[in-house]
């Protein structure tokens, strides 16, 4: 067996966190010997091997040490203990950009960057056009980089890193920026690298990406490695750490922030807000519980095709007739996945007076990985009056341990028909 492409041997990294940053001599003299600091352990005895040709994803919440680990592998930071051995040319894409000089043009920066990565002038000349084409910067290549937009900056960085023929590619969150078309292009390139047997180590917030392209997932939590396992398992462990530390899934935060930023751009949210604002609260939703096998085990996710029950408690301030209870399920982008109500389901609704409860029993949830948002509504049967509207306030998560991709768990059997096999056999004679 060939030696591993990356060997991380018992690596620890500490930082001194100063509460005040003193960087002038005067300040250092005044505070000499009593500059308060905390010893922060960013990485604690990490031991990982990455075989040549494999793709390994590092998951972890903010501050878990995942970027620090990547920087150590890249040789930008040095560990306090332990050592890291990398074999072959290494290209790293850390956070935004790849270390361009703002005063230089795109062309000059390409030469600069590629030569740091160890390419000779002739090598660079031969890949130069490819880099420019990949970054889609033909028109701007002789412009100073400081005039570039952040998207152009990132595209150029990625283009250089993937076109310098690296044996090892380190990627930090880069796949989550840039427009969708470019992201797809990057992902395609990453997949081509995988086919070509190159080694990829990347840090991401997106559990879905780990499942889609990684052979292995590593989970870091407060500088400790708590999992080094199959991608599906790693994602589950990651979700558990998030819950333990009371942090929300960053993907949800991102979606919420995006929805917030989009404002009127997300029609459904606007609609929901309008409906919620027009609610009379004559009949109010008092409490909502979502139950599935996962909640019994104490976590928020369920497996695809498991059953789920949503109970909605309500209270009517005065006897109310002519009611309609509705439910809708959306994905993270706010796309409607499913919606029904008591009228569609043809269920008789009792007159509401005081407290009541309506239960939605789902025999199974045929969804794949993701976080799903639940909207609940109480309206009049003609939907003219909104009594209460809870817009995407509740959520559940589905965790897919397998590597199937997409949104819906479609039952599928794969087989080869016998006649084909005969033909193959027959062709020999």
């Amino acid at each position, binding site marked *: 067996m060939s030696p591993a492409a990356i060997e991380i041997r018992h690596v620890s990294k500490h930082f001194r966190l100063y509460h005040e940053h003193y960087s*002038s001599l005067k300040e250092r003299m005044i505070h000499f010997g009593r500059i308060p600091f905390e010893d922060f352990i960013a990485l604690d005895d990490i031991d990982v091997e990455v075989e040549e040709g494999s793709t390994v994803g590092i998951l972890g919440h903010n501050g878990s040490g995942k970027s620090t680990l990547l920087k150590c*592998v890249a040789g930008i930071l040095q560990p306090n203990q332990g050592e890291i051995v990398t074999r072959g040319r290494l290209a790293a894409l850390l956070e935004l950009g790849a270390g361009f000089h703002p005063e230089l043009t795109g062309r000059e920066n390409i030469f600069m960057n590629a030569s740091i990565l160890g390419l000779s002038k002739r090598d660079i000349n031969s890949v130069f056009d490819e880099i420019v084409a990949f970054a889609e910067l033909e028109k701007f290549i002789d412009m100073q980089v400081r005039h570039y937009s952040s998207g152009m900056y990132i595209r150029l960085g990625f283009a250089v890193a993937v076109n310098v023929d690296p044996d090892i590619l380190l990627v930090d969150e880069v796949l989550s920026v840039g427009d969708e078309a470019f992201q797809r292009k990057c992902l395609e390139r990453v997949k081509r690298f995988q086919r070509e047997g190159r080694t990829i180590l990347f840090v991401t917030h997106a559990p879905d990406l780990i499942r889609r392209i990684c052979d292995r997932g590593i989970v870091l939590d407060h500088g400790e490695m708590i999992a080094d396992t199959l991608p599906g398992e790693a994602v589950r462990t990651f979700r558990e750490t998030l819950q333990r530390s009371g942090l929300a899934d960053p993907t949800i935060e991102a979606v919420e922030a995006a929805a917030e930023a989009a404002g009127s751009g997300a029609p459904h949210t606007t609609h929901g807000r309008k409906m919620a604002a027009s609610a009379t609260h004559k009949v109010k939703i008092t409490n909502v519980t979502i139950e599935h096998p996962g909640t019994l085990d104490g976590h928020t996710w369920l497996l695809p095709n498991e059953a789920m029950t949503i109970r909605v408690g309500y209270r009517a301030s005065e006897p109310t007739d002519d009611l309609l209870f509705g439910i809708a399920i959306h994905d993270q982008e706010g796309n409607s996945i499913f919606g029904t109500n008591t009228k569609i389901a043809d269920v008789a609704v009792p007159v509401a007076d005081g407290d009541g409860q309506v239960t939605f029993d789902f025999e199974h949830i045929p969804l794949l990985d993701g976080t799903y948002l639940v909207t609940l509504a109480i309206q009049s049967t003609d939907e003219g009056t909104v009594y209460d509207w809870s817009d995407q306030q509740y959520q559940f998560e589905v965790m897919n341990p397998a590597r199937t991709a997409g949104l819906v768990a479609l039952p599928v059997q794969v087989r080869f028909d016998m006649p084909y096999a005969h033909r193959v056999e027959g062709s020999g004679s």
Partner: protein
Amino acid sequence: MRDARVVRSRTSVIERFRRIVAYRELLVGMTRKELKIKYKNSILGFAWSLLNPLLYLVVFYVAFVKILGSGVPEFPIFLLSGLLVWNLFSTALGAATSSVVANAGLVKKVSFPREILPLAAVGSMLVHFFLQSMVLFAVIAILLRPVAWEYLALLPLALVALLLLTGALGILLSATNVYLRDTQHFVELALLAWFWVTPIVYGYMTIGRRSGWFAKAYMLNPVTPIVLIFQRTIYAKLDNTRVPVGAVGREILPHWPMTGYLAYLGYSFVFGAVMLAVAIAVFGRSEANFAEEL
């Protein structure tokens, strides 16, 4: 088998030195980048680097010859032969000191021996030095002024000693500057003092003929031997013949044989080499957290 690279907390000075040498091609590229950036948005470009010593020349000529009445004959040639050396030293040291901080974007994103940054700063100043020297040599050629040909071979040696010294100090100060940002200002002041204890605007023998602790301490300046060799070669006048023998101001440069100048230059080499080892060791220890400090 692909070559393996090891990242660990401590690497020996020799190992670090070897890495710097392995990246020499990058050093050339970085030097070119430094020059490009410097003149990116200026119309006069390289002309500035020629203007600078001329301006100095005018100022010092007025101050020393017209006001103080310095008796050094052919003062402009004398001044320039030492001033060019000093300019290389001081501008390179200033640029090297701020080099790591100035290239923070690179340091935080890409891995390479960071010593390349101060060295590239020195390299770009070396290019300026050659340009400025051309002016001096052109003047000498036009005036058909004799130089000490036999000493010409010492010039490259002296230049190497100067680069060694500047590179070493530059590496050391660039690391210090990451943690103590006022190193830059400190260096400016120190260079001002250093200039006056180097025989550039006055002849070495002004101090050299004296005895006592000051004259001895004065000789410890590692830039002095380098300046002396440049003056001995290009200026080549040992005495001011208009002043009587034995009187103050008669001797300008020391009456040493070539071996004397060489031996004194040896001191600069030893000083520079020791400094380089110290600098790389210090740099190596502090480099671990550059990316975090910047």
